[in-house]
């Protein structure tokens, strides 16, 4: 695509293929290509590079990426609820975020509210140890809301700055599991004024169009404040985030680009769009 010079049919077709291959989805792709064709006409563009340049600017400008809610010293603890489907990278992302907070001198507590999956709390415990965060866990099979209740009580008692609540992976169409999530959220709201201050949907970049359904249903159930797009170190681009921003109005706050503790950074729309080509 970058090698092409002319704005011919083949260029437009290859641009469409590039966006579909990046999981933008057909409707979003057609809208973007349609808008670019109009822009090309209006701006009298003749070179492929010009259109690519317009695309990069327009899409980057369109992508919302406000920072995480600031950790105000006054509201203690600052509570971050982390949700998403199975295997998307929630636990690992929490480990990375905890490490960042610790580097800034904040005290951190991790709450192991995944009481279902084998060794979920053990996995979070490793991340707590790595980042010097505290950990609250119950035995496997217990009530997740109870762990959250205890965790927040302990965090308040100890004057912890930031609490991350790790929840079990769940497919968004499972009614009882989404109800469980709502219950967890209610416990958080009752325990801490203004909490959860951040509710993050962790989304795997390899996910296709189902990501849109994930964003919608998790947002309905638990009022998301942002998305963490993980596994961008792979070949998938997670282009469905454009449709998510359009239809669910959610920003991408962070991207995960590896399995190590330092492989998380704030989302940068320009960098993201550059990487598409």
């Amino acid at each position, binding site marked *: 695509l970058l090698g092409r010079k002319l704005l011919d049919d083949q260029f437009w077709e290859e641009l469409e293929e590039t966006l579909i291959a990046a999981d933008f989805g057909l409707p979003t792709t057609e809208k973007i290509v349609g808008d670019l064709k109009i822009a090309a006409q209006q701006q009298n563009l003749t070179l492929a590079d010009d259109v690519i340049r317009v695309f990069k600017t327009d899409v980057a400008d369109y992508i919302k990426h406000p920072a995480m809610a600031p950790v105000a010293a006054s509201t203690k603890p600052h509570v971050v609820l982390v949700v998403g489907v*199975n295997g*998307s990278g929630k636990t690992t992302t929490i480990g990375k975020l905890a490490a960042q907070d610790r580097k800034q001198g904040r005290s951190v507590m991790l709450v192991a509210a995944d009481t279902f*999956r084998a060794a979920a709390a053990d996995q979070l415990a490793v991340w707590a140890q790595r980042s010097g965060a505290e950990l609250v866990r119950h035995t496997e099979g217990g009530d997740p809301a109870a762990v959250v209740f205890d965790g927040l009580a302990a965090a308040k008692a100890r004057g912890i700055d930031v609490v991350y609540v790790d929840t079990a992976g769940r497919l968004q169409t*499972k009614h009882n599991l989404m109800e469980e999530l709502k219950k967890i959220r209610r416990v958080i709201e009752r325990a801490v004024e203004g909490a959860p201050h951040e509710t993050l949907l962790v989304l795997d970049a*390899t*996910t*296709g*169009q189902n990501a849109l*359904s994930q964003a919608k249903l998790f947002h309905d159930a638990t009022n998301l404040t942002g998305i963490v797009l993980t596994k961008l*170190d792979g070949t998938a681009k997670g282009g469905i985030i454009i449709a998510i921003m359009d239809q669910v109005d959610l920003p991408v706050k962070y991207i995960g680009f590896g399995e190590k503790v330092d492989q998380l950074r704030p989302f940068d729309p320009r960098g993201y769009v550059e990487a598409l080509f």
Partner: protein
Amino acid sequence: TLSDRLAAIFQRLRSRGKLTESDVSEVLREVRVALLEADVNLGVVRDFIAAIRERAVGAEVLESLTPAQAVIKIVHDGLIDMLGGTTEPLHFAPTGPTVIMLVGLQGSGKTTQAAKLAARLREAGRRPLLVACDVYRPAAITQLTTLGEQVDVPVYEEGAGDPVGIARRALEQARRVGNSVVLLDTAGRLQIDEPLMRELASLKAAVSPLESLLVVDAMTGQEAVNVAKTFDERLALTGMILTKLDGDARGGAALSIRAVTGKPIKFIGVGEKVNALEEFHPDRLVSRILG
């Protein structure tokens, strides 16, 4: 659904008189939309439409009293063909332990599916052994040993170490003790991670698995093709397991991975519990993909 949309299109086309080939082309565009919506890879969709075009613009459709249904049937049959038609079982060695290696991207469901397979094999009267070859992920070994206890299947683990050595010694133990199936749970990895892909190749060379199964998340998007192709080129897969089909992902990745590797999907994961594993039936997945 696709059949509703096709019925609506044909109704409009029909009102203009006799159906023509270009009318059916419009219909095939609708099929393309449905398949892309379902996450089937663009290249695979192209090839598929080209493969059914001749039949779709033939008399079977143009002269049918129910052309929408005729097209749906052609699409349905074509997708079933593409998925290999029948259910392909696991293969077992005539003598000695059968080694089954599970591979795939991070979080696709390998460890859980390993436990599910172990439970199924145990119920079938075989003596499986689970092997913890993921020495990287925090608490991966604990996850496998916990699942092993749940399904009453022994787990061979050495903690951290060299996965190839661990697999070799696990196989030796299996031979000594009499385990008929050895299930290797490997670490999730990107298909573009050279050192980790070489590790898998070494693992394969060391213990010669009879089955190398790629575990793929049913919600995987367009990259399913590149992932499957690379794993297949590097390892010569013998099959695949499609997971998390208990959600509402359409599962088009199934078509993509089958089309690009030619390897059969042997099982599907339909839940988080250890009994949530089913044999793959192409017709059920096709109905799901077509929405």
